[in-house]
């Protein structure tokens, strides 16, 4: 199938790189707006406290200060955010634009200082005095769910903001008849996104037109516009969202945050342009956090390691505020947990707790913990039963004969290849040779480990997903393609790239559908006055939803172009015509031959000589299309990783890392490779280095990049990437999503590899991150070395 493509699959360099690597990108701070005011937020030094009073009298008199605004002021200018989808077990929440009664986490914004420059704004912010009455802070899931817990949100009945369970088949009966029941635990720590470019916005209220131009690096310009209009009491035609080049987002730039809404509301209120650039401390402390989970699995197994039933308990620390329905991330984890394995008896219980920490949100692979939990469970089975972990994977993995496969949660897997990627990875590693090296090394007191992690990656999330999840919203996408009078091709889609490298692959999708060179297509994104209303970039939907819609719209345009071309060639129909690279070709004697007619000729006719068009054909070449992809498209991969653990220091070095990945039709292999590498890097960085740390009183201890450690290339290995390409039969051009699976696989594979390395010492990794301190702590508590102690 893929061999039929001429544009899809080309290794076309990223179009945006010309401007980005020559320093000519235009980010938010490159936009010069004369007279713009700057804001700085006064933030809570406490995790949990009542606001008794805010005294800004002195600060208001300081040089350059235009105004200082509190939660009460903003409550007059904006409506509150109510999150109350009809989901069983989910408590509705409502929050004001800035806190009025109490603060709920260290870094919560309590007042906004507007001044003529940022320095003066920060000077004044220091002089705003807030009187607090401190309350006990809830800083863990256990504390949050304790019967006498202090309420983070006093309008709720408990801190358990969301609670769902499901039971399919009869897991209890499987447990009763099982050879063994194996329990395993997994605690993933709090992460944050760390985009190179922090949050920020420039709100420019045009008082004459009564129109808000909101410049903001954001993944979802149209849904953001809807939110802004609603919260400001404006119509959607009074708001334009313009997203310039964006330095990374990773899920952090989806929600309309309180700071951004404040800036927009105050621009309107003051009738002045206002800009806010979040600083790094604010970003680490108060933007959005993610991934804090505690999971337990209980697996009923046969003697051979066949999984008979799986029970999952999943608790999430959601932080203090809900910008998304609280079950949003955890639900997907529970939904796809069984992943690449044949399991029909399955139960889960998912609890989401509010705590006095920064609010949680989706972060590239919001379901990232899934693969570690499932693959760690597989390794636990192998360990407990004394089986080869590869064999346990083999006897449980879905093969071609099992497909299509309905997971116990109803999710449909088709066109996936988990058993094939497993075998590819295992063959590439040469496991037998590794085991020999590992045994030899152990005699020298060195600890080598091999980890495996097979990933089923949920991508795209069509409208059916939203409907069944009970979340209002859609998974469709919209595009337009316009052939200009000169034959130039413009296109647009509702996505917004934040560094992924969209411009080439999306141009390739249009070019493939239309029949032109990708180089001749320009895709415009990020301006809601230009782009059609689409759902934006999230959930690995860019390729299938965005690329798929553009491809279909390109096909629609091509059909019209060929009809006009046929009339220009005096043919009765377009049946024997095609367009390649903008040249109209005709099938003559089983050969495609040039007609001499080009897209430019057709465009000139369509726009400038419309009376010559065939009957019933309207002038112009302007096309739009919307497309709702399947509820989910699944990609899959198997990660394999060899590590060495230094038992003296606890340091982990990665000796080899490979992934066999099947993400269907590849629009552009350069961009896909970048996403594979970036996702793995992000997963490893999170598993080894990154950690948001709160102390027992709820103080954030990781608000600088000297404390929140992100991997640099020095800390990362080379990644070997092995390819499978199984197209999805239900999507245009067989496209699937990707770019999140690497995170899922990396977290699981590194944990499994370290567990394998330390197995001789009886150590199993149940908690991330894998810091050298934590490894040493495990070894200190574990049995002494089975071998003679040797010099380091």
């Amino acid at each position, binding site marked *: 199938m893929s061999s039929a493509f001429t544009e899809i699959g080309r290794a076309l360099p990223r179009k945006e790189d010309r401007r980005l690597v020559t320093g000519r990108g235009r980010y938010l701070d490159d936009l010069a707006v004369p007279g713009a005011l700057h804001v700085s937020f006064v933030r809570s030094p406490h995790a949990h406290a009542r606001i008794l009073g805010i005294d800004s009298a002195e600060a208001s008199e300081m040089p350059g200060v235009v105004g200082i605004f509190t939660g009460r002021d903003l409550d007059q200018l904006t409506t509150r955010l109510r999150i109350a989808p009809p989901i069983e077990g989910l408590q509705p929440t409502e929050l004001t634009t800035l806190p009025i009664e109490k603060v709920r986490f260290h870094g919560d914004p309590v007042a906004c200082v507007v001044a003529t420059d940022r*320095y003066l704004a920060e000077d004044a912010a220091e002089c705003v005095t807030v009187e607090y009455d401190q309350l006990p802070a809830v800083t863990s899931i256990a504390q949050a769910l304790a019967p006498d817990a202090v309420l983070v949100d006093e309008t709720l009945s408990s801190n358990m903001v969301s609670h769902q369970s499901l039971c399919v088949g009869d897991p209890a009966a499987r447990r009763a008849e099982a050879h063994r029941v194996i329990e395993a635990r997994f605690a993933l720590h709090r992460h944050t996104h760390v985009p190179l470019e922090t949050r920020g916005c420039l709100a420019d209220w045009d008082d004459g037109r009564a129109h808000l131009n909101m410049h903001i690096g954001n993944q979802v310009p149209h849904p953001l516009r809807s939110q802004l209009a609603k919260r400001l009491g404006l119509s959607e035609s009074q708001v334009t969202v313009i997203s310039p080049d964006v330095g990374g987002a990773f899920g952090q730039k989806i929600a309309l945050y309180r700071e951004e809404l404040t800036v927009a509301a105050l621009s309107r209120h003051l009738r002045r342009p206002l800009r806010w650039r979040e600083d790094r*401390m604010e970003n680490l402390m108060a933007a959005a956090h993610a991934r804090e989970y505690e999971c337990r699995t209980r697996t009923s197994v046969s003697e051979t390691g066949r999984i008979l039933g799986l029970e999952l308990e999943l608790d999430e620390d959601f932080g203090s505020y809900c910008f998304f329905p609280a079950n949003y991330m955890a639900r997907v984890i529970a939904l796809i947990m069984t992943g690449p394995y044949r399991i029909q008896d399955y139960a889960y219980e998912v609890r989401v707790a509010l705590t006095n920490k920064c609010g949680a949100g989706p972060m590239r692979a919001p379901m990232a913990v899934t693969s570690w939990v499932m693959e760690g469970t597989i390794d636990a089975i192998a360990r407990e039963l004394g089986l080869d972990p590869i064999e346990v994977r083999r006897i449980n993995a879905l093969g071609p004969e099992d497909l299509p496969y309905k997971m116990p949660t109803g999710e449909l897997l088709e066109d996936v290849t988990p058993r094939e990627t497993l075998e590819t990875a295992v063959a590439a590693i040469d496991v037998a040779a590794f085991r020999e090296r590992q045994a030899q090394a152990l005699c020298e007191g060195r600890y080598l480990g091999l980890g495996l992690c097979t990933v089923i990656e949920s991508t795209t999330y069509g409208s059916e997903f939203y409907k069944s999840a009970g979340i209002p919203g859609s998974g469709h996408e919209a595009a337009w393609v316009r052939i200009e009078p000169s034959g130039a091709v413009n296109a647009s889609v509702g996505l917004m790239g934040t560094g992924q490298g969209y411009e080439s692959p999306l141009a390739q999708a249009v070019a493939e559908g239309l029949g032109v060179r990708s180089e001749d297509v320009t895709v415009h994104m990020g301006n809601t006055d230009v782009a059609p209303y689409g759902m934006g970039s999230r959930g690995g939907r860019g390729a299938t939803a965005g690329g798929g819609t553009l491809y279909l719209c390109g096909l629609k345009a091509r059909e019209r172009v060929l009809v006009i071309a046929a009339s220009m060639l005096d043919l009765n129909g377009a049946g024997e015509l095609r367009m390649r690279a903008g040249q109209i070709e005709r099938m003559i004697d089983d050969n495609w031959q040039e007609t001499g007619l080009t897209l430019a000729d057709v465009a000139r006719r369509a726009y400038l000589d419309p009376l010559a068009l065939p009957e019933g054909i309207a002038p112009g070449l302007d096309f739009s299309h919307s497309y709702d992809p399947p509820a989910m498209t699944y990609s899959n991969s198997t990660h394999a990783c060899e590590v060495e653990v230094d038992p003296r*220091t*606890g340091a982990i070095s990665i000796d080899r890392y490979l992934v066999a990945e099947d993400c269907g039709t590849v629009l552009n292999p350069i961009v896909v490779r970048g996403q594979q590498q970036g996702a793995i890097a992000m997963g490893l960085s999170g598993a080894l280095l990154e950690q948001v740390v709160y102390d027992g009183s709820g103080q954030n201890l990781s608000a600088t990049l000297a404390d929140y450690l992100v991997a640099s290339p020095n800390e990362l290995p080379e990644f070997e990437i092995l390819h499978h390409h199984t197209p999805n039969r239900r999507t245009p051009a067989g496209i699937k999503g990707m770019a999140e699976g690497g995170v899922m696989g990396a977290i699981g594979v590194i944990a499994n590899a370290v567990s394998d390395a330390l197995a001789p010492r009886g150590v199993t990794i149940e908690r991330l991150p894998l*810091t*050298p301190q934590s490894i040493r*702590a495990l070894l*200190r508590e574990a049995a002494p070395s089975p071998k003679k102690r040797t010099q380091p």
Partner: protein
Amino acid sequence: MKPAPFLYHRPANLADALSLLRAHGSAAKPLAGGQSLGPMLNMRLARPGHLVDLNDLIELDSVRVTDSFVEIGALTRHHRLAIASEVRRSLPLLSAAAATIGHYAIRQRGTIGGSLAHADPAAQLPLIAVTLGASLVIAGPEGTREVAASDFLQSIMTVDLRDGELITALRFPLPVGGLWAFEYFSRRHGDFALVSVALSFARDEEGKIDALRIGLGGVETVPLRLPEIEARMQGRPADETTIRDLAAAVAATIAPEDSEQVPAVYRRELAETLVVRAFQSALNREEGA
């Protein structure tokens, strides 16, 4: 993350710099490479009323080697310490440690005087200065004085530097032992070490340890030199038993900072491991040479 207001001065020579520092007393802060002061200003952890930029004082960017000492101007950048042949020949331990500081861009800016004045307990240059018995040359209103690095460094970011004073140079005594090593453990390339170890020693005709100097960074509030342990090792053979004893003695002597993130027991283990590795790497280098 914008600094509080300050006045900026850029003196053209040492005399002008000193008179500015004297005029503004405790309100003045000298700016050299700015690799620590810059972030501290932006986070408003440092709030000087006057910033005295030293970067035009090229006379302080210097390396002078004599028979009895090496004098390094306070404005000498880490990169120069790491690559200059006169430093690598005379003080290879200093060069090796300087080469591990931060990243390339940081080494192009950071200065030895700035590093000593900042006094981060995990920093490389204060550790090497203490280990090699360096002294600081300090100019001030009362003239010039010289103070041992081990006396100069008093606690975390606390040093013996009075209002109006400026570090102008460091003096490292010669000769130093021919064997040396610098070992450190950090979470990432370029990060401050959790623990670092500097070693310098010689071997007498029988191959026994002579003139051992051992310093540890990152374990206490200032870089630590361990003269008692050094003395105990004098004249012992450079063998595995000695190395193990030395490492165990170090681990037993130090009292590392304890925190939830980095427990004292972990720093002690690291110190023991790194002492062993440092000694072995010094011996390996000797074999290789």
